[in-house]
Structures are given as C-alpha cells and as structure tokens.
C-alpha cells in the first residue's frame, strides 16, 4: 500500500486520484461541487448511474489501476467490487482520502 501524505485529508474529486489513493466517498453528483463545468443534465444522469453501481456516500474506494494513455480511464475498488470509469466521470465523486494513521481496515 503506498503511503498517503498525512496532510491529504482535504476532500478531493476521485477523478484527480492517483493509483493507490484510498478514501471514503462523501458526496456524489451536484452535491460534490466538482462538476460546475459540466451541464446539469450530464451530472444528474451521472449521479444516478454512479449511485446505481455503488458509489454512495460512505463507500470505501481505492484507485487500483490507471489507463496507459493519460492515466485514463481508472479502475476503482468500490467496497468489494471493481468499477472502471473515466476521470471526467470520477470527478463527480468527492472523496476524503484516508491517511495511513486513520485507516480503519
């Protein structure tokens, strides 16, 4: 497990996460406040799909893999399953990174 900086507790969009990032989902969709550049219709549809596939508030996530061109798309572990998505879509998920000291599992 790569070490996270102990200063990384500021919430970040999952789309900016690098391989090895672990965290807890704290907001999905418009509430994440990270999708202001995208049309609301895109964000709302995205929110539903993300929720439907398991990105709910409180879910435990980890960036498992990155694509080979531009590190996109990314493979995410969501609780006990894996999901692939593009960084653009992952930006609709706001994550609080876990630090090594606060890691529960």
């Amino acid at each position, binding site marked *: 497990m790569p070490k996270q900086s102990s200063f990384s507790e500021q919430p970040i969009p999952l789309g900016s996460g690098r391989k090895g990032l672990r965290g807890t989902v704290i907001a999905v969709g418009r509430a994440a406040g990270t999708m202001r550049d995208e049309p609301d219709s895109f964000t709302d549809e995205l929110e539903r799909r993300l929720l439907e*596939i398991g990105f709910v508030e409180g879910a435990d996530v980890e960036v498992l893999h*990155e694509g080979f061109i531009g590190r996109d*798309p990314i493979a995410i572990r969501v609780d006990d399953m*894996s999901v*692939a*998505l593009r960084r653009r879509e992952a930006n609709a998920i706001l994550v609080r990174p876990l630090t090594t000291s606060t890691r529960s599992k």
Partner: protein
Amino acid sequence: MSSWPTDAFRFALVGNPNCGKTALFNTLTGKRQKVANYPGVTVETKKGRLITPSGRKMVAIDLPGTYGLRGRSPDEAVTREAIMGEIAEEQKPDLIVCVVDATNLRLSLRLAFELKSTGIPVLLALNMIDIAKARGIEIDIEGLSRDLDMVVVPTVAIDKAGIGDLVAAIDHHAENKGVAPVTQWHEQSADEVRAAHARVQAIITRHVKTPRNADRWTRRIDQILLHPVFGILILLAILFLIFQAVFSWSSPAMNLIKDLFEALGDTIKTHLPDGMLASLLADGVVAGVGSVIIFLPQILVLFFFIILLEDFGYMARAAFLMDRIVGGVGLHGRSFIPLLSSFACAIPGIMATRVIDNPRQRLATIMIAPLMTCSARIPVYTLIIGAFIPDHSLAGFINLRGLVMFGLYATGIIAAFAVAWGFRHLVWNGQSEPFIMELPSYKLPALRSVAINVLQRGFVFLKRAGTTILSMMILIWFLSSVPGAPEGATDPAINYSFSGIIGQAIQPLLAPIGFNWQIAVALIPGLAAREVAVGALATVYALSDNEGALGATIATHWSLATGLSLLAWYVIAPQCASTIGVVRRETNSIKWPVAMFVYLMVFAYIASFATYRITLAFTG
C-alpha cells in the same frame, strides 16, 4: 414453443450483468430455448422451457442484465417492460427469479428490493455460492431470507444437480400460486437509491461476513492484465490470436463449404437442361446460400473467443485498456473487438457489437464497421495494385505495392474514426455517454454454456441474416442474368442483362470518377460480395477467370487515375449486400441500413472523384 400450454407457469430471470444468469438459464432449459425478438428492441431476450420433476411445464424468460429497472434507453427498458407486462407479445411473469452473485451481493440486493416493489413475487437465487464459499464468504441464508422476506435458494449455475433446489422452489411456488398480483413501479429518485443502498448495507452487515481480500485472485490477475505495459502486450497477443483464428483456422472449413456449394451448383447444371431454371438454382439459390454459409466458420470461431473472454471477465478489461483510443471519437472501449473482427468480415463484426450496452455507441460502431478493410477486398486490391503499381522498392526495403496496400488499410481506419467523430458531433450534438463499467471478478467459463451460446449465435446468423442475404443474392442474380443474351450475340451475356443495362445507364454518373462502362457493369454483381467484382470484370471483358490476363487487360484499358479511383471506391463503397442485410437485422430497422448505404455511397463518390482528379492533374 407451440406444444406448451399458453397458461403455463412463467418465470423471468432478472439480475445484474455478470451474475451468471445466462449460464443458469442454459442449465435450466438446455437446448430447449429460443431467442425472442421484440419490435424495435435490439437487445436479446431468450425464452426456454422446462419440465419440473413433478411434471409441471414451465416457461423461463432470460432478460437482459441490469442494475435497476430504470431503463437508460429503450433497450434497457425491455427488462422492466417484460416484467410489467408492457410488451404486447408477452404476458406478465408469475414469478421473478432474481439471480444474485453471492460474491457481490450489494448491487444485486438493491435490484432484488426494486423487483419486489413491483408486486410480483420474487425468489432469490443465490448464485455462485460455491465461489463465495471458496473465498471464505459466510452468508446466513435464513437470516437473509427473513430480512428480505423472500425465499432464498443457493445455486451453482453450471451444476445441474445444484439447481434441483431452485426448480423445486419454483415448482412449490407454482403449486401455491395465488391471484395475479397488481403491479406497479415508479422511477427511483437519487435519494431513494441512496436509501436502498443503506437498507442493503444494514442487511449485509447483519448476515454476510466477507474476509479481507476475499477476491485476491482477481486483484492479482488485474495487476498483470491491467498493467500499463504488460496489459497492453497481453491484449495485443490475444487480439492477434483471435485474428489468426478467424482468418486461418476457419479457412479450411470455408474452403470446404465453398467446394461443396460449387460442386452442388455444378451438379445442378449438369442434371438440369441449360436455361433460366438451372441458372437460378445454381447461380442464384445455391451460390446465394453458399455465400451466406461461408461466413459461418468465421462467425463461430469469433464468437467462441468473444463469449469465452466475456464469461471469463476479460472483455471488460479489454474495454478498459482500449477506451482511451476509441473513446476519443465517442466510441466505447467495447467497440474495439467488433471493429477488429471487421478486418476479417464486417458481418461477424457487426454481430459482435452486441457486447456494447449503449445503443448509440453500438450504432456508431455498426455504421463504421464496413470501413475496416475486410478480407473480401483483398482480391480487388491485389488485382488493381498488380496492374498499376510498379513492383519497386523504396529506400531499398519498402515495397511500393505493399505500401499502397498498407495505405488502403490505413485510409479505411482513418475514415472510420472520422465518421465516428462526425456521428458524435453532427448527429448527436457532441453528447458523450458516461463510461462506467463493472470489472467483474474473474471466473472460469462453463464450457457447456459457452457452447450453447456460440451455437445460438450461429443459428441466429443463419436464420435472420440468411433470409435477407439470400433474397438479395437472388435479386443480384436476377439483375445479372435476365434478360438473357439474344440469338447470335457476340458480347458476353451479362452485357444484355439488367446489370448491363443499369451499368451502361449509370456510366455517365460514374464518368466523373473515371469509371468506364465495364466497371459500372461489374459493380452490380459485385454487390453480392466485393471479390465477385473481379470475376465480373473478367466476364465483362470476355476473359476466362484468369487474374493474370485480367490484370494485363485493365492495365492497357484503364488509366492510372481510373485504377486508383476504383481503389478509393473499394475502400469505402458499400459493395456488400450481406453487410447491409445484417445491419437491417441487427438494428431492427430500415432507417439505419439505408443511412449506411447512402453515406458510404456519397463518401465513396467524393473520395473517388478526388483521387481521379488529383491523379489526372499529376499524370495529365
């Protein structure tokens, strides 16, 4: 299904993608199944029948995998419509068997709750229980059943004995079947989805114990298969293997089919008096059927690999690796395999687009598949390149002919990407579809289920595509043979047929792109399949089927500009009636094959015109 009573007990299998639902369905019904096609719906639904040990006859319906009943497209809505009895041809099911992956309960239980809210009784099949046990996952089945208020039956899809309990539970339900329930459904809001997840989480916390790293094998395999370097190398190796298989493994079978049908055609010609009937049977029907069946080996080989990789869980990984490359023009990562298959033949390629869930991206993939250089173009390319391109070496090691061949392949790919881009920006106003895809855990494919699915593909192809293609083949035969040559005619018979008449009539239209009337005439039988144009040209020039002689003839009769223009034409033009027929079947519409035909024609004309004029400008 005719012998089954219409009031037979009906149950629908519903579940997430990758839950092993189709394998379960295959075990339940074996070969007694058929693919049901609903008007305007391109995803596939299967129906099968079974007799329970107590002698009850039942109908099982396998509905497309889904995460929820909210259809994100008309296709996806088919699962809900079938359950709610909104499909005219289908009655409401008496029971829903919700198939859940025991190793991945979270999403499936949310679906189970949504299914239950419709009012139809739901029975939970806790599938892949063997894998869950092997991974150390402990599930309190009684507690789960109590909290869900559903009968829960652990199952192992591929084990016939293991599903006896499931059949017994369904039978028991049928025995005590009450009045048909009133069904209802409303689209869940985002917050309702959140609430459902919370409810599922509570149940999982209470009844399921998952050890840490339960699925460590999937994680380990992904370390390699999704690796930025090794992952790509392995993908390329797999693609190379598939390509090899489709091209070379199927060629003995294809040659055999070709020989068989030629022999059959010859037999008919020797036993029937020479005339229209013999020609219709031999050149129209037998040759037409042969030209359809000859694709079957390629289709079976291709689908064997695709279904095997899909069941193993690799297809999602391939899509992940390829998404960035094809995603730039609005395609889905999963578009990659169908496009690659189209280098062999667009027909299996277009059929393989079924792995793309999103209908727009599937349609875009179908529309560009014919631009991939298929093997039927090779004889045409070889003929023209051999006649016009000198066998020179460039810089000592690059063969000019090889370079031109490569250029033709590259042009097709570039054109395809340009069209896909145009589709996204001009037809769909730049909307892009989210790419969110589960990466299922790896599972050993059940060979019996793979075999059933591959054979089903073959039957679907023969039945649906076969009828359309055959009728087109007969039409093309008719155009090229009727009316026959008059008494004492000196020219080849085709010149007097409708093909000859049409070809000479449209020649003025083709003159600006440098085609003479001989080419125009040959293009019409060439619609049967691209390579047929070579034989047709030989016929028009009244030569025996000898490529060397034909090459020499066209080299003297055509200008370089005409030769290159015809090459450009063959890169793009829809010179394949079979492809159009398959598009008609796969899109379940008239609109899309017509659109494909028109856009490829226009595009080909422009490309040939430009090629002709530019070459003329250089060569005078």
